[in-house]
């Protein structure tokens, strides 16, 4: 089983469009995992029908019982996240600021603080109109456990690929290089980077690549909207060669991409004659990355 993670550093470079098109090509032999858990979009194209949904619990938040609180202020004083405030009604925990470290719970001299388990999202295992299974999730607002939910989605996808005897897992990752991206890279076999020819995207790609190298995962790159700035595209290609990253394809800016998304389709469905050969070739190349 081979796990391929599609990421970009910068948002909006076309990760999800690429994942949707590749999934369509490889639909008989893969499980798809949407690990962009705080802005998951693949469900808008895959029309998933959940056959299993599960609440995701992770971490705790502190709650102060006003009837027991002696108003000593020790908890507010020691909280490093400024998550405890005092008002006329007494001390109170601000749930969006509480990181669930439980320091206050251990400190409170009158045991007025309890810890509540947090349901921070949901994870879905779905059938799709593509035929392949999709594992996706919904992280609750402001939740600080995106990395753990990503790990959960990946774990479910791995189990599914095993029972369904599929050879590939294709992961749609988050923008950035922080907690959810690090979690999506953990245990991956190959990385597909999708970039675009802008100074911002190149800078983001370089930071992402520095992170990927810590994991020693082989990577390949697609330059999307390559014709928007041929000079920067050429610069990115030189950089890829220098870094030993395989350049898989240049995709020119094409309205088919927007049209497909707007119609809830992938770009191969939108224009099979044009895009089927392109993405079939990309998929064949990705399979060989090691």
């Amino acid at each position, binding site marked *: 089983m081979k796990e391929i993670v599609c990421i970009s550093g910068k948002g909006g470079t076309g990760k999800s469009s690429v994942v949707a098109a590749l999934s369509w090509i490889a639909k008989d032999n893969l499980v798809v995992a949407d690990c962009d858990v705080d*802005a998951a*979009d693949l469900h808008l194209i895959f029309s998933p029908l959940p056959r299993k949904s599960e609440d995701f619990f992770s971490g705790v938040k502190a709650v102060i019982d006003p009837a027991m609180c002696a108003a000593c202020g020790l908890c507010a004083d020691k909280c490093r996240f400024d998550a405890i405030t005092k008002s006329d009604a007494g001390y109170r925990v601000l749930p969006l600021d509480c990181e669930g*470290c439980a320091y206050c719970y251990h400190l409170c001299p009158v045991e007025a603080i309890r810890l509540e388990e947090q349901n921070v999202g949901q994870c879905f295992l779905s059938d799709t109109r593509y035929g392949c299974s999709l594992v996706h999730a919904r992280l609750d607002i402001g939740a600080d456990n995106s990395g753990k939910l990503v790990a959960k989605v990946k774990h479910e996808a791995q189990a599914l690929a095993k029972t369904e005897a599929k050879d590939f897992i294709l992961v749609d990752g988050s923008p950035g290089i922080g907690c959810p991206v690090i979690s999506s890279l953990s245990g991956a076999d190959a990385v597909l980077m999708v970039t675009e020819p802008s100074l*911002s995207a190149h800078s983001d790609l370089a*930071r992402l690549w520095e992170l990927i190298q810590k994991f020693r995962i082989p990577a390949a790159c697609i330059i999307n909207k390559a014709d*928007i700035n041929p000079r920067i595209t050429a610069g990115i290609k030189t950089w890829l060669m220098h870094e030993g990253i395989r350049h898989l394809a240049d995709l020119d800016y094409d*309205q088919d991409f927007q049209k497909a998304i707007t119609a809830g389709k992938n770009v191969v469905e939108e224009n099979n004659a044009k895009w089927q050969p392109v993405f079939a070739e990309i998929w064949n190349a990705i399979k060989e990355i090691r």
Partner: protein
Amino acid sequence: MRIAIASGKGGTGKTTLAVNLALKLAESSTTLLMDLDVEEPNGGIFIEGQCIVTIDARRMVPFWQQNACNLCGKCPSLCRYNAIIKLGDYIMVMPELCHSCHACSELCPVNALPMQALPLGTLKHQSLGKLDFVESRLNIGLEQASPLISQALSYADKHFAGHDYQILDSPPGTSCAMISATKTADYAILITEPTPFGLYDLSLAVETMRHLGKPFGVVVNRWGIGNSEVLDYLKRESIPLLAKIPHAREIAIAYSQGEILYQAFPAVDEALNQIIKHIEAAL
């Protein structure tokens, strides 16, 4: 006045709007631009000012003092992030999992876990006329963006409280980093694009702003691609539409090479005027 620029979806034009809005405001008012997309900061590609100061941001992490430790085993059971493990007669601290809560350190009965400062990232302050620009950049490999965002905002509170405007360029998404970047703002501008992806992620960002009780309005970027469902959504939800920025290949090209847009494209300038008018009226 502190204005956060945010979006659920990435790549919808947050930095473009933040940079152009800040530069335009700075033509007549003291303005601070903060790049809080600490994982992938790009504001510096568009703004070249005079560097005032570069600050190494640090975070506090426990450091095990073997000779002081009595191996009581309290610290691994206290840590909610599994950042401390006891292996036989050895205590292992994993800084990448630590949230700097200080619980293990301050509750250790024999003071065997003093906190020490580890690198977190950098804050870089530049100045350009009436504009102050602060970029915050997280060290690669670190998972938590929020501590650096908080430090950057403290820097803003300390040095720029008197500025007429503070523009915050936030990270994408709706999770903790985006909340950290927007929660102290007086007003939020959510920027989206008129596609189903853009609309869905906008709805998540809207839910987040409502949860925070934050006044906000929406800018639709790349108007002309996709469809007009986003306008129906805004109407249905009674959300103010601040401006539409048209889609144009020339704008995409100018952006790609790090150019400022509003002086070259009257449509962008007009959109900024509308946004400023809306914000002034809202506050």
